Each structure stands twice: as C-alpha cells, then as structure tokens.
C-alpha cells in the first residue's frame, strides 16, 4: 500500500492560493473554515518563501493520540481521518496539532466549537465511499475514484505534490538535483520524523 503524503516545494510556490480555493470549492467547506492555506514567511523580504499547508496526515498523529473520544483513524493509505459522529468538539486535537489543521465551525455553545473539520486528503470519512452523507460531512472522496487531492492536482507550478511518500520524495530530489537548490520538504520532519536529503 502507498503511504500518502503532501510535499510543498517552497521554491516553486507562487502564493496564488488556487489550492485554497480549489479545496473550498471541491468540498463545499463551510464559511470561516479553511482546510488548506498558504503561509508566506518573511513576506516582502529577501528569502521570502510561501508554503501551502493543510493536514499533513502525520505518522503517529498527535490529534489521534489526544482525542478524548478516539474519533480518529488512519486508513491503509496512511491518511488520517476522523468521524464527525463521534467528535464532541472539545478542541484537544487543535492544541496538539503542529500544523493548525483542525478547524471548528462556530455553531456550538457560546458560538465556540462545533464538530471538527480538517483536510481529508480528498478521502472522505467513515461513511460509504461517494455517498451523500459522506459528501455532506467531509466533502468529495476523490481517492476512492482513483484521483489524488485536488489542491495538488491543479497546482499551477506543480509546487504542491501529493501521492505516495516515496514517489513524491523522488520527484522532489530530482528537481533539487536538476536546478541545484531546494529549501527542503516543509513540515516533513515534524509530521513524518524524516526529511528529504538533498
């Protein structure tokens, strides 16, 4: 089985935010929630880099470890998903997540936390693949259709890569070799406890 990962080649990202928009549209993500965002570091200064970030689908995911109701599960592809039926909206996964991935719709008591929402790697949730219930709760299930996450698929500069970890790491390594530089696989060390040597 593949081990699905995201890799953002920061030397290619032009901060067009198309991944953010595509994600919101594909999954009809509720107002106020962004499953993916582009963060620009040292904006306007020499050495500025933009990184597109969502849930990294960590190895030994912290969100799953701290969840009081154990609503997370990891698929055979290494995708970290959760059940909105079990989620109680406590906010613990958000405290533990290194990437700020979990988001909460403001529908609960005092307008605080409803059921948690996060990037599903376009792989839906525990409901039947492609079902109406799954779409309403988690958005499209592209993985079940044999497609990769839309954010990476439509990235105009092919900065954002999605797919099997070893394959996208190989693609990145070849790029670095060819162009002679690379600022590294952002978030990999934190998420997967490994990095791509270049």
């Amino acid at each position, binding site marked *: 089985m593949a081990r699905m990962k995201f890799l953002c080649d920061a030397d290619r990202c032009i901060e067009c935010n198309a991944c953010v928009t595509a994600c919101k549209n594909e999954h009809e993500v509720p107002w106020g929630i962004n499953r993916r965002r582009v*963060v620009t*570091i*040292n904006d306007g200064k020499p050495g500025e880099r933009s990184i597109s970030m969502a849930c990294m689908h960590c190895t030994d995911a912290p969100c799953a470890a701290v969840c009081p*109701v154990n609503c997370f599960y990891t698929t055979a592809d290494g995708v970290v998903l959760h059940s909105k039926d079990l989620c109680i*909206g406590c906010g613990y996964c958000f405290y533990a997540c290194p990437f700020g991935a979990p988001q*909460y719709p403001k529908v609960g008591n005092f307008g605080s936390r409803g059921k948690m929402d996060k990037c599903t790697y376009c792989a839906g949730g525990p409901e039947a693949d492609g079902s109406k219930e799954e779409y309403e709760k988690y958005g499209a299930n592209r993985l079940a259709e044999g497609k990769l996450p839309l954010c990476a698929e439509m990235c105009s500069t092919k900065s954002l890569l999605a797919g099997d970890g070893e394959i996208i790491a190989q693609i990145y390594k070849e790029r670095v070799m060819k162009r002679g530089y690379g600022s590294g696989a952002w978030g990999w060390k934190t998420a997967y406890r490994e990095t791509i040597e270049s």
Partner: protein
Amino acid sequence: MASFGRLIRLAFGACALLLVITATPASAQQVNPTASSVKEQQLLHELNRIQGRVSIPDQRSGVLEQPQGREWREFRNVTLRWIGGVAIIGMLAVLVIFYLTRGMVRLESGRSGRTIVRFTLFERFVHWMTASCFVILAISGLNITFGRPLLLPLIGFEAFSEWSQWAKYAHNYLSFPFTVGVVLIFLMWIAGNLPNKVDVAWIKRGGGIVGHDHPPAYRFNAGQKMIYWIVVIGGGLVAATGYELMFPFYISGIEGMQMAQIIHSVVAVLFVAAMIAHVYIGTIGMEGAFEAMGSGEVDLNWAREHHSLWLDEQSGRTGPNDQKPQPVTAAAE
C-alpha cells in the same frame, strides 16, 4: 546608402551582444535562490514555531508550525494521568486506611439535644449549588482525561461519544453557576477564614484528628480554612483557565491554550482529591458534622468540641449559656 548603414548597425549589435555574453562570468549563471531563503529547521530552532502572513481572513492560520503540541500531548496523555491517578486514588487509599484505623470521630460528650445555627439557608444554598456543579464538572472533566482508557472500552464508541458530548455541554454550562458559587463563597466566608494564631496551635496539635484532642477553633478551624482557600484559589484558577479554553483565541493563542489546559487539569485533579477529603470529613468521617450543611444547625456539644471559641462568641452574643457539657440524657427527651 541606407542598406550599408543597416549592415553597420547589425555588425555593431552583434559585436555588443558577443561582448555581453563573454563578459558574464560562468558562475553567475548557476543562481541559488535558496542561499538567502528562510530555512525551516533554523526557524524552528530559533522560535520553536513558524509564523508568516496569510491572505485569507483567518489571520490565526498564519502559524505554519507549532511543534510544542508534542510536549502538550505528552502531558495530556501521560503526565496528567499520573498526577490525577496518584492524587485521587492516593487520597481514597489514605481515607480508607484512616477510616479503618481511626474510624468516625465521635461526639465524645454525646448529643445535648440543643442545637445552634451554624449555616444560614443562603449559605447552605450557595454551598450546595457550588458542590453539585463541582461534582458534575469533576465527573465530566475526569471523563475527558480518563474516559478513553477506562470507560470507552466498556460501553463502545457511540455510547461513549454521546455521553461525552452531553458531559461537555454540562461542563461548559455549569461552569457559570460554579463560578458564581466560588465568588459567593469567597465573599461570605472570607471573614472567618483569615489565618490567625489559633490556627498555628490547631495545626501543632494535629487538629485533634488523631487521638481525642480538641484544639480550640473559631468558626472555621485551620483545616476548614485550608479547604476554603483551596476552593477560592483553585476554583478561581479552574474558572479563569476554563473560560480561556471555552472562548478560543479571545484571550490567547495556541500556546496560551495549551498552558491553560495544563493549569486547568492539574488544579482540577488536585481539587477533586481535596474535595474527596472534604466530603469524607463532612459525612462518615465525623459524627454531627453533616448537619452543619444539612439542616444548618449543629448540636451544642459538637460546637463545643470542635469550635469552642466560636461557640463562646455565639453565646456571648445570644446571652448566657452554660459552658458545661450538656447531659446526654437531654437527647432522649
């Protein structure tokens, strides 16, 4: 001729282009834009977090990475369970051993049959409002920390989630009457709970917990004062940190919330352990103690044994009262 002029210009252009190409050093063609670029590991090493600018309205999502969630995870899953387990099970064990060896603290002079008002209806209402909120807050809070390893395997995912969802609602809503209760307790009993010299003597004599000693005390003895300050300070801390967690990002960012959860949970489990001892001494631990918060009136002999100075004060206020222990037979009338 015009065509000759054009030829000359072309030749000059070609020469100039050749000059530019040959003048450019070969090394400059290999540009390395990452030489000056931001480095992930360097940023993490410097600040332990990476923050930037986002163009979406949610400015808080500008935090790209905050790996200190790992330390918080370790605290939440390991450290807190140890602290809570040792504090609560340890307290229960101590009380069981104490009960089996010392037993109930009896009324040594028996019941007089005459009572004195210890807590007014309002005081009892505030006490029980705070106490009932506390019990539900404690159970629903402990469920968040210990429910997954202890209760979930017994009742299954759906039932456990359903219960935890209601427990969360209860925890959020009951925090308000609980906070009101803590504030009222602070205000209405502060006068009797300021430490004084009597407390030093009381503590030196071990509060008379062991043996048959009855060190003098005013309305509240040193042990009760400790409970009072645990409630006021502990209650204040759990309330403040709890509201910080209930209203995310109003007060602090993510590290602030991690810290708030740590303070909230550690204070809470110690609070629970202290309240178990409080419940023990107020019920099966001491004869005649529960009435103080039950009916609000305690037996005169109970007051004399445990709060002699307070009884003197009250007697001075309400008129002459014989200081000898009342005969036990009076209770039978």
